[in-house]
């Protein structure tokens, strides 16, 4: 499957909302992930879920405060990695 940036954003957002975070209806793809409670364990579990969906392991060293700002920015980082793979 070819992953567009929009599809990746949706997938990352769904994993976060449904499986990893305990968040309310106000959680959106632009919500700040650190403020929403994302910690290092949850990020690693997210990366494992992304690998399961896309087959690409995201290099943890690419993750920064900026890339983890929101589901959208994280998906952009993953998309760039998939494009370069």
């Amino acid at each position, binding site marked *: 499957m070819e992953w567009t940036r929009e599809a990746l954003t949706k997938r990352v957002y769904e994993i976060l909302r449904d499986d*990893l*975070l*305990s*968040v309310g209806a106000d959680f959106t793809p632009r919500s700040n992930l650190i403020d*929403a*409670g*994302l*910690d*290092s*364990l*949850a*990020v*690693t*579990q997210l990366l*494992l879920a992304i690998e399961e969906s896309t087959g690409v392991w995201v290099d*943890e*060293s690419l*993750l*920064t*405060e900026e890339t*983890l700002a929101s589901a959208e920015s994280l998906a952009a980082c993953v998309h760039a990695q998939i494009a370069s793979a």
Partner: protein
Amino acid sequence: MPRLPAPDRIPLTGADCFLRAFDSEVRRTAGASHLAQLVLRLGPGLDAGALAKLVAEVAEAQPILRAPIRRRYGLLPPEFRLDLAVRAPMPRVEIHDAPRANGEAPLPPLFAERLNERVDGRRGELFRCDVVRYAGGAAGSDVAFTWLHMLLDGSGSERFVRWLDEVGRGARSAADLRDEAPSDSVGSGARADGEAAMRWRARMRSLAARAPRSLAGPLARVPQRLEVDVATFTREETERIGARARKLAGFLTPMLFYLAASVRAHAAVFALRGIDPRSFVVPLPVNLRAKGAGGAIFGTRVSMLWFQALPELCGDLEGLLGELKAQRLSAIKDGMVEAGAAAMRFARWMPRSAYARMARRTFGGELCSFFFAYTDECLPGMTSFLGAPIRNAFHAPSVPPSPGSGAIFSIREGRLNFSHVRQAGVFSGFELVRFRESLRADLLGADE
């Protein structure tokens, strides 16, 4: 359908039972209890009498603070017996006066003494508070909250202090606390738990191929005399340490940087003694609270990830970090966070001394090499407690006589605190100097 707990009883979590096993171990070998402590160093403004009244009010409204811990029929998993709390003693609050200002002065020796005490969880002796006032409070106060470790974990204790402050300021009532029931309180999925526990056991056995040594040695039976010192780094140093941690360990896993530095500091002491440590095996607590939820206060909500560092890797900080990062990823991929939690849940049914006996059998008489925790920012965003500015805040959990050493890191308003909790006599004066030199050099870098 699993039976829901009665509202007057709260089952201990698996992690609570894990800590209860340590408590049993400490009582047996050292005559004390396995306690934890959160210390606040405050500026002027604390009304210690009002704090004492507040703790009494809260303990009246929240009986878990003095709930006897008992097994139903002596066999079923242990519970906090809220229904028996009315007969238990109220938490003690003691106010002590000291002449000098606190500032960056050493901690009151009383706080370490509190960690050496023996309390009886079966009678509901779970929580106490000590206030040391300087110049009657005009020059500030130090406050130590000390509790039997299964009542609160590090994160829960910070939530409790925050909540206590809100009640004290009148922002909420003492009864207004909707704590989560333990997520693992009922015994569903026993077979899955059993299988996960066996996977965890296999992992522990694989670590035993190079069983660890602690600096105290196995099965030390000595009266508990814990010493605690807290090194607080400046903001400039903390910035530099933080940048180094991010560069070497990554944005996500700074705790591995502190773990690696702690392993190397212990290795430096083994080298002084000329003893082969065989390997360093260290458990890292992992917070299991739902991410983003208000979160539980009472009960410990953690699993453990176990790391092993071979001495031949300890010569190079970056190489050691690479190994620890690989172990962390592999353990999470293999479901070891969940397996550890399942093993601890399973242990709720075992006699409380069984876990320690099993660990010692597996690790050639040792429990682990040392205790370690990294709790990140302590009381983030909270600038005052009951009207007094918070100058510093940190954790100091007790450590059993063996392994005899605990390294706890946290950050308060841009300053790193390193709490070194150790059993008296485990480090000689010279070894302690070497330990600190090694740690400081690794944290700050060679060109310090």
